[in-house]
């Protein structure tokens, strides 16, 4: 392998692509689609309070990755067997170029075109940055990881095009494996959940029975088994003669189904979307302005990695959902409108507090993406190795149905 050889191939590939194919048109359509998505997102969030840039950034990057995974495989999936069909591969193989020169040169050319697609989407990321809420460092890390994912997809396509004789087979195999990484990992994770689930006795923190018996003899016990925490009845506003405090929390043992996602979260880590989404999470309060796909994916993956913890078994809402104290609450209320306003403020702050607690929990979970990044790196290196081996000449074993020239 030599720099000169790699450059020769990369220049040849790029020159061919520039002249023959519809890449300028595809690039234009790509720009319009991403632009439309960004415009719609902005239209949806522009009048909201908070960091509108994060939503814009999330949606744009999500679409760039999603559309990129549709476009990028076509850059390499027919590259080697297509050349063989055209009868131009063997003439290169009899020159001083090595098989590594050919494979790496083709990979670099395809990757350069993928980066052109990223570049075409960058104005919208800059827009998101101007709109506020996204740090430059976070953005750069996510874009770098995204570029890496695209390189791995390029390498995958190259391998299949080196392995199969027919271009249609390699194209199908490449798209199938991209789909396997995207959907297969999620499906495998979902299937793994009931398989890994166990019925076991766990220690749950709840509001003590004693508290309810003292204050509301009429209300059924909250510690009865089988009542999931989500269905906890809301606090009847103003009806309580006394509100429970953290001091009223007690531990009880309860038989419960536990999903052991902490054993299978790595399935999610192999997903390119998770890798990109989790590379640079915002660590912001758990508050979605609207559709923030990357943040949601990252939170989901880290929640899975966290699994069942004492924190997640804490159902004592005075601890997990502390009541916000709104300043000036005790002041006499002037009129109905002001009263409504106060109530709304209180609710917002209440939500904020709860989200902060959940965010703190998630922030304690180690990042998920390095595993996927490493895994994709191995895939990339492995596929390049296979492709280089497959192009090595003189050939001893020729795959069935291929002619060299």
């Amino acid at each position: 392998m030599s720099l000169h050889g790699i450059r020769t191939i990369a220049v040849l590939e790029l020159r061919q692509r520039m002249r023959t194919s519809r890449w300028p048109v595809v690039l234009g359509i790509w720009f319009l689609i991403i632009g439309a998505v960004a415009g719609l997102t902005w239209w949806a969030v522009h009048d909201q309070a908070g960091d509108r840039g994060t939503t814009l950034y999330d949606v744009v990057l999500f679409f760039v990755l999603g559309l990129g995974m549709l476009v990028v495989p076509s850059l390499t999936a027919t590259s080697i067997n297509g050349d063989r069909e055209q009868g131009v591969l063997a003439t290169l193989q009899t020159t001083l170029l090595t098989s590594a020169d050919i494979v790496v040169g083709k990979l670099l050319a395809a990757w350069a075109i993928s980066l052109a697609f990223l570049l075409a989407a960058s104005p919208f990321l800059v827009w998101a940055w101007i709109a506020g809420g996204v740090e430059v460092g976070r953005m750069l890390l996510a874009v770098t990881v995204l570029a890496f994912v695209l390189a791995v997809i390029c390498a995958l396509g190259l391998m299949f095009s080196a392995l199969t004789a027919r271009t249609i087979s390699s194209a199908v195999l490449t798209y199938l494996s991209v789909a396997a990484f995207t959907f297969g990992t999620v499906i495998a994770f979902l299937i793994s959940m009931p398989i890994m689930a166990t019925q076991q006795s766990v220690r749950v923190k709840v509001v003590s029975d004693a508290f309810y018996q003292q204050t509301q003899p009429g209300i059924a016990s909250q510690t009865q088994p089988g009542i999931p925490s989500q269905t906890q009845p809301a606090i009847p506003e103003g009806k309580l003669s006394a509100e429970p405090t953290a001091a009223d929390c007690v531990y009880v043992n309860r038989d419960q189904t536990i999903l052991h996602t902490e054993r299978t979260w790595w399935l999610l880590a192999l997903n390119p979307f998770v890798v990109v989404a989790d590379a640079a999470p915002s660590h912001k309060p758990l508050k979605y302005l609207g559709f923030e796909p990357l943040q949601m994916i990252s939170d989901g993956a880290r929640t899975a990695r966290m699994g069942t913890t004492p924190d997640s078994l804490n159902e004592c809402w005075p601890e997990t959902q502390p009541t916000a104290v709104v300043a000036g609450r005790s002041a006499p209320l002037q009129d109905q409108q002001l009263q409504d306003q106060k109530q709304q403020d209180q609710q917002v702050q209440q939500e904020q507090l709860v989200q902060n607690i959940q965010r703190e929990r998630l922030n304690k979970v180690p990042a998920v993406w390095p595993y996927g990044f490493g895994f994709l790196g191995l895939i990339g290196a492995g596929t390049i190795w296979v492709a280089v081996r497959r192009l090595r000449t003189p050939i001893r074993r020729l795959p069935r149905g291929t002619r060299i020239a």
Partner: protein
Amino acid sequence: MDAAAGIEVTGVRRAFGSVLAVDHIDLQARPGEVTALVGPNGAGKTTLLLMLGTLLAPDNGSIRIAGIDPVAAPREVRATMGWMPDGFGTWDALTVREVLETVGAAYRIAPTAARARAGELLELVHLGDLADRPARVLSRGQKQRLGLARALVHKPSILLLDEPASGLDPRSRIELRDILRQLAASGATLLVSSHILTELQEIADRAVIVARGRSVAMQDLSSASSDQGSRQRVSHWRITSLDPPRLMAALVHHGVATQPLTDAVDVEVAGDVAASELLAVLVGDGIPITAFAPSYGALETAYLAATEDRQ
């Protein structure tokens, strides 16, 4: 590297799964000569050339190209070997000149030198006026000529040409012959394949006949060669006359070894000088001669015999 070694193939065999493409081929191609590889379709010529061209490893037997084993040291072989495939695929979007420059880069020739070489070669194969057209629009024969130029970019001393004459018009064929003779005269080793006998008769010094993956005969075609030594050798000529009985009588009278055919007669003389003397004598005798040409009767017979049993 030993440029004087040419090509040496002994007992080479290659199968693709259950298809035995090359069974047992022995051949030798010497520097300064054009060696023809003749055989019907499917005889295994392309497969043999792929093995010589460092693309395919033989199952058995040994190959030496300029004294180097292409399996053990393909790179060294590639540096001195030019290969022209029988397919004429080329990069669609590049111009004719760019194709040659790209191949030059692949042989690590500096850009300026590659550009100069491309210009030279385009003149040689008469594609100069098409130099800046896309390679895609070339006709089949023009693509063949571009293929030849591509094989010559790095001035190889060993040339492997797979059916170079197919698709060429008569004029291009004569030009091809001149180019190949020129290369041979400069000391290169040329191995040229074809399934059409007449394509190679004027080009080659010797022919190897291949059938069903086996080399069945090696024939000397020295009358086609213009070097001094061959002029002394026995050569075969075919004479046609308006009056065959008188021709036969005259030949017998002058004591020439003859082999009568239906509409002509083959004679055996000692070299080119003797042949021209014989022609002068016959014309002097007033015999109406319409054709006096080198005969490839022996090669033809061998070729037909070797390929008789094909399906």
